[in-house]
């Protein structure tokens, strides 16, 4: 368990909903609903946080959700219970998931790989628990390939990394480096906010 990362997100839990539950969630709700509408079969949701994404989940699914922060999961509990389906939560580090290999048909992430300390190792861990041919769906913010946004994202990361996410990750490259095959990348805002669909090769 990465205690340092756990502490960081435990500290962030108290004000997380204030910062993220209104503007960002309102703005991203249509794209998140579209992404999560693809949920089928055995689903792993990585980094549930305070459960803000649950509002965009389609009803009636059976979802295993993990998060490294017990405080985040405690705050998520009311949303988990209100979901018209089944969500099972576990406090867990993506790097140390005890699930058997090839346990899930799909893995979903939402603004997660800006914060996983070793993103390629985290993605490799997700590949391990996905069935061959299983799909990875991500809603992520990343760095930019375009000036001046790339410089700005690097500058912002100096400040943001201390309290939360990195702003300059190349998550698409990380997904590839972890051994996934990219199926589709769709830019939602500039090339900074995007959805990524990838598969674990058979």
């Amino acid at each position, binding site marked *: 368990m990465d205690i340092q990362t756990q502490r960081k997100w435990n500290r962030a839990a108290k004000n997380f909903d204030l910062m993220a539950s209104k503007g960002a969630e309102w703005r991203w709700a249509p794209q998140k609903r579209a992404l999560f509408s693809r949920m089928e079969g055995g689903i792993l949701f990585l980094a549930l946080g305070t459960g803000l994404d649950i509002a965009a989940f389609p009803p009636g699914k059976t979802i295993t959700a993990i998060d490294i922060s017990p405080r985040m999961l405690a705050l998520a509990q009311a949303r988990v219970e209100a979901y018209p389906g089944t969500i099972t939560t576990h406090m867990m580090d993506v790097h140390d998931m005890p699930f058997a290999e090839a346990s899930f048909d799909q893995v979903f992430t939402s603004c997660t790989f800006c914060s996983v300390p070793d993103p390629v190792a985290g993605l490799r861990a997700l590949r391990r628990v996905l069935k061959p041919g299983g799909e990875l769906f991500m809603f992520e913010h990343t760095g930019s390939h375009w000036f001046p946004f790339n410089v700005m994202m690097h500058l912002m990361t100096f400040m943001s990394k201390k309290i939360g996410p990195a702003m300059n990750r190349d998550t698409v490259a990380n997904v590839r480096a972890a051994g996934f*095959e990219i199926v589709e*990348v769709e830019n939602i805002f*500039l090339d900074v906010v995007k959805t990524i669909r990838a598969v674990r090769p058979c």
Partner: protein
Amino acid sequence: MESRWYFFVGDIFANLVVGVVAGVACWLLVGPAWNMWLAMIIAMALGMLVAGLLFIPFSILFGAMEVMVPTMLSGMLAGMVVGMWCAMSAVSLSGAVLVGGASGLVGLAIVWGFHLILRGRVELARGDR
């Protein structure tokens, strides 16, 4: 460019405010005795700092990256323009407000322009192409 009115107006408002506040902050700091290039660099940094602080309330209302990226650019731009102008001549407060606000709108327009080019599907594979 955002098609929902709440966010469309919110984006304009946020960038206008960041531009004006960054412009006024630079007007307060930079005087005609300053070296223009030094003024530009310091004023850009000040503009980014202003944007970073104002991002917090605006992000709660209007979104995360969609607010952070344009307001940072607007803060930098307003700082650069007003800072250099103040280093070259005596500038009135109303001038700093107007130019700062205009810089904020230009910053937002630049981001919207890039967004129109970059948005949408960018990569396909596995027979979906």
